[in-house]
């Protein structure tokens, strides 16, 4: 782990950052989204709602830097039929709870609702999202993001955007 600046991340800074991320994802500006990440960070959407051992369990998404870039390329490259055109989304993050805080990093859990619109129908997803944010000289970056979808181990639909 590299040295982090010895700065405190405030809840206000963190929430503004998460709302910016939400806006980027709803605009599907995936290049900008990749830029929000610390390269060593892991983006996980587990199937098992209770597990912390993501490596040994099946996930919906288990992306390191390389897979995140490949996913961004797939979603915006124009060659994925499910993302050309993609569903439109509007998401809301709320109910922020700080779960860990130390100099240079802040972990917070939030509630997220995503409404998807495609083919004249709308679908709703709800999730608990945990972000670990880290302070860098260039600003906040995502050190880890875990999205726990309601019904993650049940029957979902296909999804061609990001949570």
């Amino acid at each position, binding site marked *: 782990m590299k040295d982090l600046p010895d700065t405190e991340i405030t809840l206000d800074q963190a929430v503004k950052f998460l709302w910016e991320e939400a806006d980027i994802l709803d605009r599907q500006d995936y290049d900008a989204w990749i830029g929000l990440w610390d390269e060593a960070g892991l983006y996980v*959407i587990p*199937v*098992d709602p209770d597990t912390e051992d993501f*490596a*040994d*369990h*099946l*996930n*919906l*998404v*288990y992306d390191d830097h390389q*897979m995140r870039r*490949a*996913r961004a*390329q*797939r979603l915006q*490259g124009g*060659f*994925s*039929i*499910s*993302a050309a055109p993609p569903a439109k989304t509007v998401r809301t993050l709320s109910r922020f709870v700080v779960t860990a805080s130390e100099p240079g990093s802040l972990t917070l859990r939030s509630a997220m609702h995503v409404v998807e619109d495609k*083919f004249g129908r709308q679908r709703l997803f709800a999730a608990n999202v945990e972000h670990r944010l880290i302070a860098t000289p260039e600003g906040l970056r995502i050190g880890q993001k875990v999205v726990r979808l309601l019904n993650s*181990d*049940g*029957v*979902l*639909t*296909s*999804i*061609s955007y990001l949570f």
Partner: protein
Amino acid sequence: MTLDSVTKDPQYAALAKGDRVATPLYEDPAIFDVEMEKIFGKAWVWVAHESEVPGKGNFKLSWVGTQPVIVSRDRKGALHVLVNRCRHRAASVCEVKKGKTSSFQCPYHGWGYALDGSLRAIPYAEGYAGEFDKSQLGLRQLRVGTYQGMIFATFDQEAEPLEDFLGNAKPWIDLFMKQGGGFPIKTLGEHQFKVPMNWKIQLENTTDAYHFPVVHKSFLQSLDGETNQTFSFMDDDDGWVEDLGNGHSVMVMMPELIDLDENLDEPIPERFKALAASLEDRYDDAQIRRIVRAVGGCGFNLNLFPNAGCSLSFFRILRPVSVAETEIRHIALGMDGGPAEANQMRLRLHEHFQGPMGFGSPDDAEVWERVQRGSAGGVDMDVMVHRGLGLEEDSPNGLPKGDISAETGMRAAYAKWQEMMA
């Protein structure tokens, strides 16, 4: 029209026409009802893998067509498939997806059933006149059969033995299970998603290589060059599709990976080299090569009529929900007792393509839904499955064998559909 008059109508079978099928097969709720009775009510239907109910008292909820069932293992280790419906007033007796128990109890009036479905006890039995004959009111039992760890069930007590029904598919199932790399196979988890489409659109897809480079272009672009080569089966001329009879078919995409125990001295692909190196301290070279080869999965898709696919390294199970709704399970398979990093790589490969957010499945789901949406237009036009017809040879089984892109497997499935709907 009542269901009784529908099921006696011989015109349903005539809607499958060999090289094409009538559009109402995707659209007509009355046909769906008949399918649930004549196909899912009669055929051997895949319900679970034995590793999902490994020990005594283990159970797992599943479905046969639209009917909810419980797959259970009793105290003697025998498997049972029971309709999840109390014989008294029809409440489901279990709503826990998977677990371990000694009995099932109806939450409504307390009727209790053993793991084999027999009725054990009812509260306040004195409210029934005479002696209450419990032996007549157990949970409805399906016939159960297993082959290579796969559990099948049928409502038809007169059905042919499971092994006869699987027939020519059995040698391919044997080959599929070699992906255990010498270890028993176990399920590692599953992706589940629902698509607004008829179930047969998914059944067709497991034996459809023609779509692969078109629909999965973005998946192919995400692979390294060597792996991309592995998936270039539409440009090679050595793959094939074979009718196996009884509606089953096999699509061989990578002939060099049919038998995972053969040609083990071939060079290890680049993407598996790190895995192979990590195993050196625990396994000899031959076993490492066997494990590494197994991690990539088999080079074929096996379609088992009506609801199961054995595909590369996972089960693809469909469940018809209604005429235009189908649920799909992609069950990842791994090595029970095998090295953790090999199973981890299996999981990562599965996540890469499969499931609601994989690089492949959402694109499949998109085109399946497009088929359902498009079939609302021009219902008098047929759906064509005639690709490869006239170019086929006879297989060693005396059945049609076409090139990799031929729609031979779909015609095989529709021939069985026609036979069962007659």
